[in-house]
């Protein structure tokens, strides 16, 4: 697998879109490219941030936060 193909597969990998038969080949190439490959995969996770930031924030109720913080404080004091 060329590095360009590895890059294409990496972008599919980080969003979980590699098919199972592609995954084995990808993992082999990942070992082959070593640190360079790991560095590139790390960069690809920026796609996750981008997809989330492309959305308009949705509103949550104040009660939800109160419930969450109550659970957290109980846990931290427990």
């Amino acid at each position, binding site marked *: 697998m060329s590095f360009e193909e590895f890059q294409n597969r990496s972008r599919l990998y980080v969003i*979980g*879109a590699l098919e199972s038969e592609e995954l084995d080949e990808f993992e082999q190439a990942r070992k082959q490219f070593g640190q360079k490959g790991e*560095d590139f995969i790390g960069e690809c996770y920026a796609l996750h941030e*981008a997809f989330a930031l*492309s959305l308009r*924030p949705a*509103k949550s109720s104040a009660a939800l936060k109160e419930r*969450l913080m109550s659970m957290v404080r109980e846990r931290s004091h427990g």
Partner: protein
Amino acid sequence: MANVANLDLDSESESAPRPPALAPELEPGAPSDTDLMLGIQAEDPEALSQLYDRYNGILKALILRVIHNEAEADDLLQEIFMEIWKQAKNFSAQKGKPLGWMVTLARRRAIDGLRKKQAYARAEERLQAETAQQPDAWVHNATEEEIEFADTRVLVRGVIDSLPPPQQQAIELAFFRGMSQREIAADTNTPLGTVKTRLELGLKKIYDGLKELKHEL
């Protein structure tokens, strides 16, 4: 079903570069996301409170894109912030950014939730109804007028909107609904090879576009 990649930051290399910075600038003097994660690691509830205020809207929007149900999204959002609280010790600032870590966690939980509740059929109906109302492949939850992330959103959306609609649709189904290439092919009545090409080309364009944005944010 294809794998849903986990963001196990601890398993990545120490020297891995940080991904391009996308998060908006903070008010002067405000703690950084990493500061807040360190606070959570030190079990400071106030740090979680601030992180919640900063990102609950983004994470809820992400969850809603997956499950299309307000009540379930609220439940999941609460569970996800509890998981952030409990799993913060696994976060390492040297290996990634807090927002990326949280988004990956939230997406995985949302897709797991979708499958666990066997809500595919309901979500499908809702998605079709929404898509009929809003013909863009990349539809949004326009329920909130928060402007905190508006500049970033416009820039990122510009990159995404520049893709041909079939590429946007393939990425939408893969990322927000956790579909495999085969599932997308079946869902859209498109040859598998075409789906693969659309995903590869679309993701490359977005990735390249984000690198350009690094200099604008």
